[in-house]
């Protein structure tokens, strides 16, 4: 099999467990994002894949060859794995020019490689800075240089550790696109670590969600967004409304409606999670399908492309607070009453 895989990885630093059994594979030409909060073990996984850390349990396979196996102590050193690893801080060498940095991973041989470096630098707009030292460049330029350096030797596997986190927001969007082009062109199996779900959605063919040292879900961006495996995954993509309830007749009743709870034992407590964008404000109470619910507006704020509404819905034990996000200008002011309904695709029921 071409591409790259990690199987049954377990890792700890001293008595501190970091990875509690993780397996993954990335096909040739595929871009997989490893998404998870800080400290969940993503970076360690990359370092293990690159060979910068020694495996404690499990194995790493690249292009069908086992490069590391804890069982027999096999450990191909990083320099012989043909794995490119791009660091979050770029780790450009301060004593080398940009061109020297990019050429660092190439053999001393071919003039052809020198040509390719120049060509590549020109493509990403770095040609004028070939002889400059890294610290004189902007963050975006440093990022591109680091990326070129990783890709220059033509690695079979690319590992990117938060490649955009040091960039400002506007820059990030722009750099993402050009990076994606370069990555796709290279045809390498790419594993990219990020804690930004939007970034993962944008870049990934497939997303692996990681939490507390385990991979909790693997799937396309669509799957991950619309079919989160648990509350943790659902909440990765931003704030949610959380409504507690109990399963009765394979469903759960809430002040804003009844939600199916397939496969959850009768009588067990559950949470209904509804994304803020999953609450739809009805224009003039027009309903379609499920009955709308009346809610009182508590606050309304314009956020730019969308607006944020704070709502209150009366319920048996007192009002419940909800928040929702609506496109454009907030349609209503405080103390007005609106009809809301739930976009069922963005509501999930998980055992509490």
């Amino acid at each position: 099999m071409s591409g790259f895989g990690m199987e049954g990885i377990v890792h700890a630093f001293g008595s501190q467990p970091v990875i509690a059994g993780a397996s993954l594979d990335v096909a040739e030409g595929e871009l997989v994002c490893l998404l998870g909060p800080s400290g969940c073990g993503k970076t360690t996984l990359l370092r293990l894949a690159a060979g910068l850390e020694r495996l404690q349990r499990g194995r790493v396979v690249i292009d069908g060859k086992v490069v590391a196996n804890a069982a027999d102590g096999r450990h191909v050193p990083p320099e012989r794995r043909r794995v490119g690893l791009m660091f979050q801080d770029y780790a450009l060498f301060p004593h080398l020019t940009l061109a020297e940095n990019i050429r660092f991973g190439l053999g001393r041989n071919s003039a052809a490689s020198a040509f390719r470096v120049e060509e590549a630098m020109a493509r990403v707009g770095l040609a004028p800075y070939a002889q400059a030292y890294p610290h004189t460049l902007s963050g975006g330029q440093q990022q591109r240089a680091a990326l070129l350096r990783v890709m220059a030797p033509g690695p079979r596997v690319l590992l990117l550790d938060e490649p955009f986190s040091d960039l400002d927001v506007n820059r990030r969007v722009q750099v993402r696109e050009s990076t994606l082009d370069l990555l796709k062109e290279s045809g390498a199996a790419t594993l990219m670590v990020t804690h930004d779900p939007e970034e993962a959605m944008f870049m990934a063919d497939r997303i692996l969600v990681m939490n507390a040292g385990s991979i909790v879900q693997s799937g396309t961006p669509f799957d991950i967004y619309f079919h989160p495996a648990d509350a943790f995954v659902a909440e990765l993509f931003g704030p949610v409304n959380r409504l507690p309830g109990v399963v009765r007749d394979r469903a759960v009743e809430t002040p804003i409606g009844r939600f199916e709870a397939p496969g959850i034992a009768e009588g067990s407590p559950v949470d209904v999670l509804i994304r803020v964008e999953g609450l739809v404000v009805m224009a003039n109470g027009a309903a379609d399908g499920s009955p709308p619910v009346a809610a009182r507006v508590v606050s309304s704020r314009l956020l730019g492309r969308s607006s944020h509404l704070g709502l209150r819905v009366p319920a048996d034990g007192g009002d419940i607070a909800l928040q929702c996000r609506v496109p454009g200008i907030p349609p209503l002011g405080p103390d007005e009453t609106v009809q809301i309904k739930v976009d069922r695709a963005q509501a999930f029921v998980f055992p509490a």
Partner: protein
Amino acid sequence: MELARTNPGVISGKSAVPRVDGWTAGAFLIAGLIAMPILAIIALALAPSDDIWHHLASTVLPHYLTTTAALAAGVGLGTLIIGVGTAWLVTMFRFPLRGVFEWALLLPLAVPSYVIAYVYTDILEYAGPLQVALRDFFGWTSRRDYWFPEIRSLGGAIAMMTLVLYPYVYLLARAAFLEQSVCVLEVSRTLGKGPWRSFAQVALPLARPAIVIGLTLVVMETLNDFGTVDFFAVATLTTGIYDVWLNMNSAAGAAQLAVLTLVIVALLIAAERWARRKQRFHHTTPRYRALAITPLSPGRAALALLACLTPVALGFLIPAAQLVGFALDHRPAPGTGRFLDLAANSLLLASITAGLAVVIGLFLAYGVRVSRSHWLPAAIRFASIGYAIPGAVLAVGVVVSLAAWDNAVDAVARASFGFSPGLLLSGTVFAMVFGYLVRFMALSFGAIEASLGKVTPSMDGAARTLGHSPLSVLRRIHLPLLKGSLLTAAILVFVDCMKELPLTLLLRPFNFETLATNVHQLASAELLEQSAPGALAIVAAGILPVIALSRTIRRSRPGQGPLGNRP
């Protein structure tokens, strides 16, 4: 920060699987070897002895302590003002000869303090040229006609030591100022602070760790000095150590005093660390802009020029000129027939020691970086405290520990092979080099350890994944990045070895003379002028390395590469 980063592996990754860590073991071994003489002194201090403390406490100890404190404080303050002030001037402002002062300010480093003390006594005493000229000018006839500061005094000792020791502070302060991003200074300016307050409130605190290292070296040098304080009849803890040892015939008592000195030094260092325990001094921005060099108005430029010229003139030009004068008058001094041999001995010893000190310093610094042992840094710090021990006492520590080793080897050889190899290491060049290493480990390890932090673990990782073996990473990433500090370490050790006296005297083999011992044997026979050629040679041998050192520091500034923006 993820966990992996808090536990960075350098060349081999770390893991929870216990493995035999050769590097840690090696570092402990070396630190242990270097700590042997210090342990020997502590053992000596613990040996049963006459009680000298009752006598000392009731007579001179308070005086020793106050004089020592005054000396250390005076020299510390003097070197702080001169070192930091001149470093700031040459780093931030444009004035005539600034480029020359960049290196010239380091020159006094090459002048041994015992030499500068002799020279200034000659110049400033009653019969010296200065007072003679004053008397001629004002028509005074005897000492009772006027007041003139006495050079042989506590103040004189402070002045002499300040003049030759301030370069340590200058060296480290300048390197620190060069490393600071101008951004932090500009932030300060925009927050409404003037250039001087920006200096005092931003630049200075940021450079504090470096300045403190410089001051620590200065204070340790001050405490271990015997030649100057003895010559100036200033009674310090160090003269007390010699007195208890040689006159009261209590080596154990002397060792106890030496250990007391060490404890004081250790407490001072600990107190400083504690005082800044909550501050962090990393640069918060990875981007540098060249420091804008501020031009000065003619009046201020003249002041800046004067401020830089004064220490160079007093610490180097005047003593060197005086030595040249002596040397021209007294060419055929006794014992100088083999002058070139002496110079060759000095140069060879200093070079070997400097090279070894760098290799060992590098090994230990990597040890600290790779090892998971918390004890290793402590062990190395302990081993490098030899710098604060008076040279002759440390020399005894070296003699005792090497002889113990030799005699143990001899006993084993006799028991198992029936022959006696005698003393293999004692009284050899090896013993001298070992002694120097023990003494100067603080210099080389300190300089290297500080700069190893500049090589981030991710640089290692990047280089490895780009197809470079650990050795290649060392060669292509670490050595180029550490080059400056390795050279700094080598040069500091080299210059100090050239000047070193008490260890050289006691540890050398038969019939082995160096420039320093030559100067000493003539000067101790009160033949000051005849010792001048040797003293001059020591100074001369230090000049080129010192200039090289300055160039290294200048290049250490980020952005000073071939196409970097050179101010």
